[in-house]
């Protein structure tokens, strides 16, 4: 289906829903095209291609709500699907807070070209992608006698969305992503450590194509012979690529559903300090070629740059139309786009140089956070630092604490964000973190 056909189908499905008894409806038609090539030890291990479609209809039937999706897109089937969904929705309880968003908040067009879709991606042939993945592999393959296996992956995807609502929203978007990664596994006396490196870019031309295999090998070799150390309270540096893991509970706690269902440790904290003054984070949907950039969110609300945390003070929750009504708050957006940290002046190496004794966390291993209380505990791996230098790798340790306290211990944000990510989080340094080891 081309874009015009998708709009026509969406409108016809909405018309049918309204005629069949829905008061309001919105339809999203999503399409995704994916390619993946994995090379392992010089042989193509996997060659995968796929095209995925779905139509999702949100129905508001006498103030009763349901969401229904299907990959069967023939019109007669869709009409029957909608009829059955409406019948089923009628059994639910009324919810006075359920309705489509206020039209005034919709994106109305005229926004900038965000430049987030590589329309040439389809012209790159499979052989070129295979050669690219192979060149990544060859940077590491056979380069050290301890290597067990090297694998590299090239993947790309384009996704298209058409969104139409019965109260006047009509919009479409397209975004692409390309990814190259390598992972290396080495044999040692005590286990087979492995590590990876990856690069992402929205556009094939901007994808960094060299150094990936080399970095994956380097990082893996650095991990050899880890030891865990005494349990204790130490400063912690979290490497930029691992840092988002510590933020996911915060983002969950900002959600309307978590707040309303008392599963958020940030209830009542708006305009209150939740972190040290060092922390300022914004949600910015309008960054040109940003990996998370968008002109409108999942409901069609116009994308707006908003502060989430300013100098440690919580400024905005992530509130969609429904929870806005339930909580008595103006909606912001139910989801995040590009998460942008205010940057500091040093990168991770710079922070390490000034650390007398502490631990650099380069990866998390399981663990969780209690949404209601903020209690967290995570497995980690990384390095012991003493007197400004890495001493040895560490693993098999945990960090434990509470989200309501740990961010007050944030003493520095780095200047080292990762290109091509929607999580523009630098390396972070915390003091006084509880580590468990020996």
């Amino acid at each position: 289906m081309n874009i015009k056909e998708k709009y026509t189908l969406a409108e016809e499905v909405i018309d049918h829903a309204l005629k069949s008894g829905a008061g309001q409806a919105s339809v999203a038609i999503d399409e995704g095209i994916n390619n993946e090539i994995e090379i392992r030890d010089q042989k193509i291990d996997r060659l995968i291609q796929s095209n995925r479609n779905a139509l999702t209809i949100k129905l508001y039937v006498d103030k009763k709500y349901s969401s229904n999706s299907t990959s069967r897109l023939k019109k007669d089937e869709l009409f029957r699907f909608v009829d059955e969904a409406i019948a089923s929705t009628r059994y639910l309880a009324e919810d006075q807070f359920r309705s489509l968003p206020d039209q005034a908040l919709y994106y109305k067009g005229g926004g900038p070209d965000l430049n987030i879709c590589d329309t040439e991606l389809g012209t790159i042939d499979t052989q070129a992608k295979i050669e690219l993945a192979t060149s990544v592999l060859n940077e590491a393959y056979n380069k050290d006698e301890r290597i067990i296996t090297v694998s590299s992956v090239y993947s790309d995807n384009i996704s298209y969305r058409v969104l139409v609502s019965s109260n006047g929203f009509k919009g479409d978007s397209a975004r692409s992503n390309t990814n190259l990664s390598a992972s290396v596994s080495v044999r040692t006396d005590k286990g087979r450590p492995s590590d990876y490196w990856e690069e992402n870019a929205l556009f094939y031309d901007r994808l960094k194509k060299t150094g990936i295999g080399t970095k994956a090998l380097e990082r893996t070799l650095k991990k050899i012979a880890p030891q865990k150390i005494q349990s204790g309270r130490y400063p912690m540096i979290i490497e930029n690529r691992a840092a988002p893991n510590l933020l996911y509970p915060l983002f969950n706690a900002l959600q309307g559903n978590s707040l309303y269902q008392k599963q958020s440790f940030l209830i009542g904290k708006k305009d209150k300090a939740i972190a040290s003054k060092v922390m300022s984070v914004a949600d910015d949907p309008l960054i040109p070629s940003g990996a998370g950039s968008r002109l409108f969110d999942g409901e069609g609300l116009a994308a707006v740059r908003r502060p989430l945390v300013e100098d440690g003070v919580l400024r905005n929750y992530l509130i969609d139309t429904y929870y806005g009504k339930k909580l008595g708050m103006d909606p912001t957006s139910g989801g995040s786009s590009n998460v942008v940290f205010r940057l500091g002046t040093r990168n991770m190496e710079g922070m390490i140089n000034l650390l007398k004794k502490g631990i650099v966390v380069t990866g998390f291993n399981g663990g969780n956070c209690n949404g209601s209380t903020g209690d967290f505990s995570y497995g980690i791996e990384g390095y012991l630092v003493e007197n400004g230098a890495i001493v040895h790798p560490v693993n098999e340790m945990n960090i434990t604490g509470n989200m309501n306290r740990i961010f007050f211990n944030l003493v520095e944000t780095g200047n080292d964000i990762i290109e091509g990510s929607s999580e523009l989080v630098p390396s972070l340094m915390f003091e006084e973190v509880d580590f468990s080891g020996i």
Partner: protein
Amino acid sequence: MKLRRRDFIRLSGITAAGSLILPPLFQSCKGPALSGQVTAFLDHFEVTPEILERVISAAMSRGGDYADLYFEHTISNYSDLQDGVVNQTSSNIGYGVGIRVLKGDQTGFAFTENVTPEAMLNAANIASNIANGTGKPVTADFSEYISPNLYPVMTSWEETSVREKIPFLERINEKVFAADSSVTKVNASVSDTTSYILFYNSEGRLAWDNRPLANLSVTCIMEQNGRIENFRVASSSRKGSEFLTNDLVDRLSAEAVEKTIIQFDATKPKAGEMEVVMSPGESGILLHEAIGHAFEADFNRKKTSIFSDKFGQKVAESFVTIVDDGTLPSDRGSLNFDDEGSPTEKTVIVNNGILTGYLHDRISAAYYKVKPTGNGRRQSFRFIPIPRMRCTRMENGPHKKEEIISSVKNGIYVDSFSNGQVNIGAGDFTFFVKAGYLIENGKLTKPIKDINIIGNGPQALADIVMAADDSRLADGTWTCGKDGQGVPVTMGLPTVKIRKLTVGGINA
């Protein structure tokens, strides 16, 4: 962030999907003598034996060794109670075929949601590119596979409207609020999935399956003196809507309340290494993370698993026997046949302390020259099958629960979990404890909660020093993630003591 080398398991509170739309009846042409049941499935997907043969031939046309077609029609529903009423549902229909070609250990794959001959031939063509020679014509006779019937359905979910689910959810709400005045919120949900599967491969195997999966979940949230605590309990089974009973509702409601109350008294243990006693049941997460993934044969043939060189060796005490079982009736981790058409079985992976079995898919079974163990699984037709677990459990040991607990001077007893993860190369595995107790001088004392435990797989396995005769299965909504795809699993364990694990906690 893409979880690639990290394999994880978590409690799901999942998905949903819509109502059944069957394509109109489609008459098969005359062909091989096939049973009424498989013919019904062919008609359901609007294919004939002749079409299947043509697609397989196209898939094998560049010299692949093997090809398979996995047709799937999945209808899922999710009904949610919040704030006293069932006021939202979501539904999803997935429909399509995954076409896979193997050349040695190499995989070509494509899927299509349009199950027309043209679309399937196109996908077969794409998948066939993993080989780059010419193929010989495929001439396997149709061989209908008669599988066991591990999950008979009394009342199908497609015949069960949301109207019949609502009373059970409302009863949960009632029971939980009535149980304690500090209850402030209740969330309850039922999710059900019905999958129609049709499988055909280049060896002629033709099989069908009808797979139900149901989950009931209760979250109790309480507030006491400004403090909020919550606890989630859930149950899952491969059953039709006979799964929903008042007994199940009452049991889960009582458990959710009881466990939430305890959370208010919970403390954190001291950080560091200590003895850990695991209670029977979902503590089987220990097996899933510490060794289960590391025994998946793809990691072993690639030699990336820390257990790759330990086959046939003693890895645990002689009283330790661990199996991965796909044959338990109505179990969340069971399958009548796996997602590559191989029969499932009870696979012994550690036998009296010796590592005797890996978990195989077709590729690794061929590599190791053994028969497939029925562990080839996939999230849906949109993914390739790879070795996955099913129900991973340890058999009874020689000790008694009481003697195990009283043998611990300073340690912890752990009971409820939410998720775990493992690095199969380094061997570090973890699991997150939602509830447990300190053990002080051989007795359970203060409750503990929200701490992560980390250990090393081979070390932890060898450190299982006591195991009781009370092995039990978990029945929660466990979903295992690997390689970007999730499959339902279960686990089981008797009471065990592990000599030493690293426990997340506080440094005084």
